[in-house]
């Protein structure tokens, strides 16, 4: 393992932003910075930026989301692990499609599709009282 990777391994960056559209850029910049530390390619860093932005956007568009979005980026030996936590208590992270028209629901689906396509692992963890976690992993050298 090279020096840079070794020193980056197991570093954790945490960020709390208001659940509002104007703060999503900061979340994706933070994730991109950690991805850059791990020596991902420019294309992979762009993938991470977009996936994190889509996850935050999904929270914001979700009826009943919490006041803040918590972003945790863990730089591990061979991957970047990202957790996007919404403390809202209304179940899954996905936007509330019952309140959307067909076009809005289709676009929301596009966001989830992008996350699943651009990241290597994606899972949800739903706590009825604590909120929802979206967990994403991007592996080094997977693409």
């Amino acid at each position, binding site marked *: 393992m090279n020096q840079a990777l070794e020193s980056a391994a197991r570093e954790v960056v945490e960020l709390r932003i208001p659940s509002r559209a104007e703060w999503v*850029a900061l979340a994706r910049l933070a994730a991109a910075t950690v991805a850059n530390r791990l020596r991902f390619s420019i294309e992979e860093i762009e993938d991470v930026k977009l996936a994190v*932005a*889509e996850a935050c956007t999904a929270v914001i568009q979700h009826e009943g989301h919490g006041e803040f979005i918590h972003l945790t980026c863990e730089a591990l030996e061979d991957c970047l692990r990202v957790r996007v936590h919404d403390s809202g208590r209304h179940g899954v992270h996905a936007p509330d499609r019952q309140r959307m028209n067909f076009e809005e629901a289709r676009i929301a689906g596009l*966001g989830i599709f*992008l996350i699943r*396509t651009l990241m290597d692992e994606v899972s949800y963890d739903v706590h009825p009282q604590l909120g929802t976690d979206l967990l994403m992993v991007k592996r080094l050298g997977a693409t």
Partner: protein
Amino acid sequence: MDIKVNVREAPGDCYVVDLSGEIDVYTSPKVKDAIGTLIDRGVYHLVINLEKVRYIDSTGLGVLIGGLKRVREHGGSVNLVCTNPQIKKIFDITGLVKIFGIFESEDAAMKALV
């Protein structure tokens, strides 16, 4: 972070919308307004120039899809100018390359308008 929108008239009863910056959940309403205003005025042939767009997410794609849907109701079309590989990749993986005309130059996009 911001998006700059510039609208200009082009020959042949069409308009060019130049976008510059990042299109996301925060900035996409501004793009939606610009495109919507043109369509409300009866402009149904548009070239949207994304050459200076550094980033686009699903909300930005949604704005473009919404604009395309509206102009098609009037027999119009939307062509895109896109040279950034990362932006092109998003259109590729979402399958939107099949519904938009995507061109390397504004000239080519203009000529291909229906």
